[in-house]
C-alpha cells in the first residue's frame, strides 16, 4: 500500500541534512511552501544551498530561513526585490553566496535534472555577463550557451490538492516551478491545501504524477499577497 501522506509539516521535513541542496517552489509568494519552510527552520538543517526563483519576500517563508542564517548559497533568477531585505543584508555583508541564472535557464536546468539530460545548449544569456566562462556553440547560425542540470537533495513545493500516491494538481500561477522541481530532487515534499481520495483526480488533469513525490502534507494557510 502506497501512502505518502504524512501527518505534520514537521514529519514532512524529517531527514533533511546540513549542506543539502533544496529546491523551493514559488514565484514571489505564489506557490511558496510556507508551512514546510517553517518546519524546516524548526528542524534545524543549516548550510543549505537554496534554488528558488527569488531570495525571499518580507519576513516569512524563504526569507525567514535566510534570516535564521541557514542558507549558505542562493541560486535564483531575481534576488533583489523591494522586500528581500534579509537576503540583501547578508549578501552585502558577504555572508551569503549568490548565483544568478536567467529564469528560463533556471527552469530548464531543473527540468534537465529531472529528465536525465546531461547538458543543453540554450540561446538565453549568450553574449552576456551571465554566460562568461561558459562553453558556447553556433548551431544552424544561432549562438548558444551550454548549461548543466541542477539536481537537488530535496524539493519543497506547494500544490492545491494531492492524493496518497502523491499525484498533484496546482492552483493557477502558483503552479510555476512545482512540477519541474518535483522531478529534480531525491526527496520531494509537497504541502497541499487538500488531500483527496485516490481516484478523485482526473488522470487527464494530473499535473505532477505521484512517482515524483515522496511525501504529502496538508497545510491550511492563506498565501500572503506578493504585491
Amino acid at each position, binding site marked *: 500500500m502506497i501512502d505518502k501522506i504524512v501527518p505534520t509539516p514537521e514529519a514532512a521535513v524529517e531527514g533533511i541534512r546540513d549542506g543539502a541542496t533544496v529546491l523551493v517552489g514559488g*514565484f514571489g509568494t505564489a506557490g511558496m511552501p510556507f508551512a514546510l519552510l517553517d518546519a524546516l527552520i524548526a528542524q534545524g538543517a543549516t548550510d543549505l544551498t537554496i534554488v528558488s526563483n527569488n531570495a525571499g519576500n518580507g519576513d516569512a517563508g524563504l526569507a525567514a530561513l535566510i534570516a535564521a542564517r541557514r542558507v549558505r548559497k542562493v541560486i535564483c533568477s531575481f534576488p533583489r526585490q523591494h522586500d528581500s531585505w534579509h537576503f540583501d543584508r547578508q549578501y552585502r555583508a558577504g555572508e551569503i553566496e549568490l548565483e544568478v541564472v536567467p529564469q*528560463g535557464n533556471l527552469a530548464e536546468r531543473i527540468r534537465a535534472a529531472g529528465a536525465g539530460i546531461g547538458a543543453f545548449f540554450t*540561446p*538565453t544569456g*549568450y553574449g*552576456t*555577463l551571465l554566460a562568461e566562462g561558459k562553453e558556447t556553440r553556433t548551431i544552424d547560425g544561432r549562438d548558444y550557451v551550454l548549461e548543466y542540470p541542477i539536481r537537488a537533495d530535496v524539493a519543497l513545493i506547494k500544490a492545491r490538492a494531492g492524493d496518497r500516491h502523491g499525484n498533484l494538481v496546482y492552483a493557477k*500561477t502558483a503552479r510555476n516551478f512545482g512540477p519541474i522541481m518535483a522531478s529534480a530532487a531525491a526527496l520531494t515534499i509537497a504541502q497541499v491545501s487538500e488531500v483527496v481520495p485516490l481516484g478523485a483526480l482526473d488522470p487527464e488533469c494530473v499535473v505532477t504524477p505521484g512517482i515524483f513525490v515522496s511525501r504529502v502534507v496538508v497545510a491550511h494557510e492563506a498565501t500572503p499577497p506578493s504585491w
Partner: protein
Amino acid sequence: MNKLDRDAMAARVARDIPDGAYVNLGIGLPTLVADHLPEGREIVLHTENGLLGMGPRPAAGHEDPELINAGKRPVTTLPGASFFHHADSFAMMRGGHLDICVLGAFEVSVGGDLANWHTGKPDAIPAVGGAMDLAIGAKRVFVLMEALTKEGRPKLVRECAYPLTGRACVSRVYTDLATFDLRPDGVVARDLVEGLDIDALRRLVDLDLRAG
C-alpha cells in the same frame, strides 16, 4: 515639441499589435500597453510565470495571491486561458512562439543589442529574472522607453555601455519622440512627435537616421 506621455507611448505600441497576436508585455512601462489595445482586436497576453490569456487587474477585493503576473501583481484570466509550469512557459518563449514581446530598456544599440537588467554598478545586487529569456523569446522584440535619460543622454546608442541582456534581438524602439526601426542597413525614424523634425531628432539622439 510635444513629447508623448507614458500613455501615448503605450498607445503607439498597442496600435501596431495585430489582431490574433500572442504578446508578452514586460514589467513597468510596457505593462501599460494592455490598457491601450484597440477595440475589436483579440490579443492573447502571455505572462512568463505560467499563463496565456491574462486579463486585466481584478476589481478591488477580488485579488487572488495565486493569480499574478510576472511583476507579481494580481491579474485575471480571460476565456481560453491556460496555466503551465515554468519550463513549459519559457520553452514557449525560447521556441519563438510569441509574436511580440515589448520590453523596457536602459539602452538599445542600433544593432539591436539590449541592456535592461543590470546597471553594472559594483554595489548593485544582480537580478535578471526573465529579462534574458524575453530578449530572445519572441518573433519580434520591441522596446518601449524614453528616448533620452533624465540627464538628456540618448538611450538608443551605437554600442551599449551597460551590461547586455541580449545581442541583436531588438527590431523596433518606441519612444516619446519617435519610433525607430532598427534595420540591417541603418535606423529609420518615423512618427516623429509634433514640432520635431528629423534633423532635430538626429541632433538629440546623435545618430545618423533616415526618415521613414
